[in-house]
């Protein structure tokens, strides 16, 4: 068995965090949850195979985080999927360096497809 892939999830809504964790852990991923951006960058540096970032978080804009990640040498290669309640955010998310985008509410199959696809690409 290879080591479980580590996915960092950031969302300011605890219910979503909880549901995603349930979902991903059920699918066999190692999941680390953040209710905001604090400490996320350090954690990402240590070990992360993929980041799942909400765009609207109280205090932090997911796109800023994404940009920082993509500017840091150590985190540049970690794929980032951004999620938002608004379809219209998609283009600005991609502009901020996100590798993929998903609109809320999403279908679980869709999410898993995107995760697999991005980790595989990486």
């Amino acid at each position, binding site marked *: 068995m290879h080591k479980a892939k580590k996915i960092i999830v950031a969302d300011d809504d605890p219910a*979503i965090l909880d*549901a995603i964790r349930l979902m991903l852990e*059920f699918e066999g991923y190692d999941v680390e949850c953040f209710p905001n951006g604090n400490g996320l960058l350090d954690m990402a540096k240590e070990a992360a195979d993929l980041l799942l970032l909400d765009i609207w978080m109280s205090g932090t804009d997911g796109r800023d985080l994404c940009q920082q990640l993509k500017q840091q040498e150590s985190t540049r290669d970690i794929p980032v999927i951004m999620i938002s309640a608004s379809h*219209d955010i998609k283009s600005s998310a991609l502009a901020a360096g996100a590798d993929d985008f998903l609109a*809320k*509410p999403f*279908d679980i199959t869709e999410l898993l497809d995107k995760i697999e696809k991005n980790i595989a690409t990486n």
Partner: protein
Amino acid sequence: MKKSDDIPTIDYKQIFEHSPAAKLIIAVDAPVYTILDVNRAYLMRTNSTREDLLGKSVFNVFPASPDDGISENIALTIDSFERAIQTKEPHTMYDYRYDIPVRGSDKFEERYWTTTNTPLLDEHENVKCLIHSPVNTTAIHKMEERAQERLFSILMQAPVGIGIFMGPEFRVELVNPPLCELYGTSPEEMFGRPVFDVLKHAKGMGFEELLENVRITGETYIGESVSVPIVRKGALEEVYVNFVYEPFRENDGSISGVIAVATEVTEEVRIRMKLKEAEERTRLAISATGLGTFDLNYQTNELVTSTVFSEIYGFQRQATRDEYLKVVHPDDLYIHQLAHKHALESGRLQYELRLVWADKSIRWIRVEGKVIFEAGQASRLLGTVLDITDQVEAKKEQQKLIKLVSDSEELLRNITSAVPTGLWMADSDGSVTYINQTWIEWTGQPYEAHLGRGWINVMVKEDRRHIASSLLQAARSKTVFEVEFRFLHVDGKIHWAVASGSPQYNEDGGFTGYIGALVDITDLKHLQQQKDDFIGIASHELKTPVTSIKAYTQVLERMMLKNGHGKDAELIRKLDSQVNRLTKLIEDLLDVTKLNSGKLQFNDRNFDFNDLVRELLEDLQRTTESHILISELAPTVTVFGDRERIGQVLTNLITNAIKYSPKSNQIIVRSTIVCNEIQLSVKDFGIGIPKANLGRVFEQFYRVSGDMQHTFPGLGLGLYITAEIIKREHGRIWVTSQEGKGSTFCFSLPLIKENT
């Protein structure tokens, strides 16, 4: 030459004796005047012999003729002698009568003479005698007399009045019968008397002065149609006379009197006046259609009135002036009095007043008239009367109407000023012709500033083109006009307004322009904004729990499937599909909000149209088991647009087709390429749309109301969003339908996309 003694001695006595001029030598022994000598010529001229005369007093041998009572020849001659003696100068008497006695009888011969008495002086310069040398002028005199008689006889027989008035007293020298007739006198009464002693009644009227002026200055005076008072047959009459006063000159040119030539023109003047009167009366009569006429004699106060006049005053017969006056409204009597007083000064009568008829009804009349003056005296008043009751009533009614109109105008003005709505009018060219006070107050711009195309200037720059073209386009197509715009309010803030207008037509159906309203929708806009914001936030907030619900549901479903609880998992799957419906509703709400606030974003790029259609058809086919989606696609094209939004359109149309055709089992999706457009139609065989609702299906909140068995859920937003997306992608959308047979929704997208 002969010697002086050769000249024979001249006998002067002989020369005296034979001179052809009659000569008498008279002694200066007044008062006798003895005849000292006489020559033959004298004796011949006087039928005398030397013995008759010599040594005798001249006045004894030439006594006064009893036939000659007027010439005073003796006194005249004595006077001449005395003058000659006194002045020692010759004195001449001209053309005077001195009759000569027929010797041997008591008869006389009438003779006229011109005689010079020459004094002869002695060495002491004393008059020693007089040479009396008469020239017989009888023949000439008689000739003159005859001529004068002829002249007089001509004057006397002349058909015009001729008189000669002599001296400062204007003694009548001559007056012919026509003048006597004119004066109402006889020649006997007048001859030799001062004229104004006879014509006493004409004294002091200025005629004396006229005559005197002519006598003194010699200037002719001509009088025309002059009124002269004359006593005829004992009664004073006024006659009219044309006359000429000319100076009467003596032989030596001096003026001794005045010749008056006069003709009576009374008849002509009367006729002329009557003619004038008749003309005046005719004129009045001509303008007298419905006019009553009257003729008032000022002297007798007699009033002659026409039948119409009587009728207007409410009488069946002609009445007296007093009777007519009694009908005049008591309050209007002063009008009558003032008007008549004024007429005597101006010659014109004009007034309007009320009459009160016997039956107490009030009638309005207008009286007009003209005063006829004779010899400077108002003699008659001719006039008309017109019943103007109807006119006055009509005028009153008109004034009432004018008042009403002006009242309603004022009311309208007050209303238009008071309404919290701007009002405007434009002509058929879309040029503004009116704007009300409210709009003036909102914009703070004066009335004139809005007229024509000026109104556009109060709008914010970005909206001007849009609204101007909207109005012009509406005016061209004569359609109802409605457009929203922003303008700078007098409070300094930008306000929102909606301008609406209805085309106006005149009675003939011609398009005259627009009347419309301007409503300040700033508050509405704010509310709408708040609503949009609220819905936006609400939808966003709703999505968050829905996202977690959906996630939990799907995890649960997977867990149950994994743990072999297939039936339970089916339940969860149903829960998930309900969550999907909820998601769709939230999405629609969010989209509508964005559409209304202009915030719906489009990410236009090129994409393969058939790819999109096939992809969506596959997905949608998976969601339905009841319907088969049949596609008949034209060869693919590249479309420039927002792939996801256009996909949303297609999804909406197909899900609607499925939803509204529960009893059929196929949906046909067909694409064609027509004139640089890709057209796509979605055909169902469902309930269809009633004709009346066809035009409304793309409106916001339009919902299909099914029968009792079939109700169709939804917010009524789907087709609205669909249509809006197509519009913003520069395409068209339309629908054909037959109720009970099904509907076909079509949209088109341009293949050559404008780069906007």
